[in-house]
């Protein structure tokens, strides 16, 4: 979808978060000098077109006790990858699941699934569950734990 200059102002005003006040859309509208109804209509259009994926909280896994977060990676036969990826993505402990190109010879893995757990033992047992789903289509796998967050800012749209 093509976004116009007003959408861009709206995105810039909300990408860090919504104000925690009873009428948040009216507060944004006042800041942007727009009617509240226009702010709400534009947000709905952005949601329908997929520019806004969801309006929601992002919980901090670490604060909720999920301190082990691993990027599990799998070399799955291409012909079975979509069907199996759907099953892995549906697991309740997987937060992101993607097919990506391999980078041979350095990197043989094509399926990526982020696994969250309270400790590495729990993550390891969840890997075992995924291994069982992938069965004979699995050729190799690995897991990469994050050791440090070096940067985390999310999307920052320029002023345009």
């Amino acid at each position: 979808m093509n976004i116009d200059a007003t959408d861009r102002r709206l995105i810039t005003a909300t990408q860090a978060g919504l104000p925690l006040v009873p009428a948040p859309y009216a507060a944004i509208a006042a800041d942007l000098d727009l009617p509240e109804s226009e702010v709400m209509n534009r947000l709905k259009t952005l949601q329908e077109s997929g520019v806004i994926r969801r309006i929601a909280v992002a919980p901090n896994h670490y604060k909720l006790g999920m301190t082990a977060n691993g990027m599990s990676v799998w070399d799955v036969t291409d012909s079975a990858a979509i069907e199996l990826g759907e099953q892995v993505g549906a697991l309740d402990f997987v937060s992101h699941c993607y097919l990506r190109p391999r980078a041979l010879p350095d990197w043989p893995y094509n399926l990526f699934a982020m696994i969250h757990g309270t400790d590495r033992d729990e993550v390891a047992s969840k890997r075992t569950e995924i291994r069982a789903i992938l069965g004979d289509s699995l050729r190799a796998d690995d897991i990469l734990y994050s050791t440090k967050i070096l940067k985390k800012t999310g999307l920052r749209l320029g002023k345009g």
Partner: protein
Amino acid sequence: MIDATDRKILNRLQDGFPVSPRPFAAVAAELGITESDLIDRLAAMKANRTITRFGPFYDAAAMGGAFCLCAMQVPEPDFDIVTERVNAHPEVAHNYARDHRLNMWFVLATETQSGIADVAKRIESETGLPVLLFPKEHEFFIGFRVAA
């Protein structure tokens, strides 16, 4: 630590916050709490970092831009300086050190498709290290909800 009401709030608000004049009042009614209690609890959870963000999640790809996961193999003695050079790019949205031969993993978010390759090339020339690109070919539906 968070209590049972906070958990209900986190579970409810991982999707579907209303776009209506009094959205907190609508969610509070569903949860059987007051509007002001909901707002106060969200503010407290934001302040103590139980929530890292609350609001719209934008998809750069749907606006004509692109995301790409990238990885580098960085020699340990150079790790700090390479981190500094990579992070200096505003297009680097997240960057994680990981325990693997490919020990630096970051996400590029750019407003145009061609932006990814441009930034990756600049990082390669600034660091003298290859940048491997892992664009998503397919994204699977996620059933995940943090069971708070």
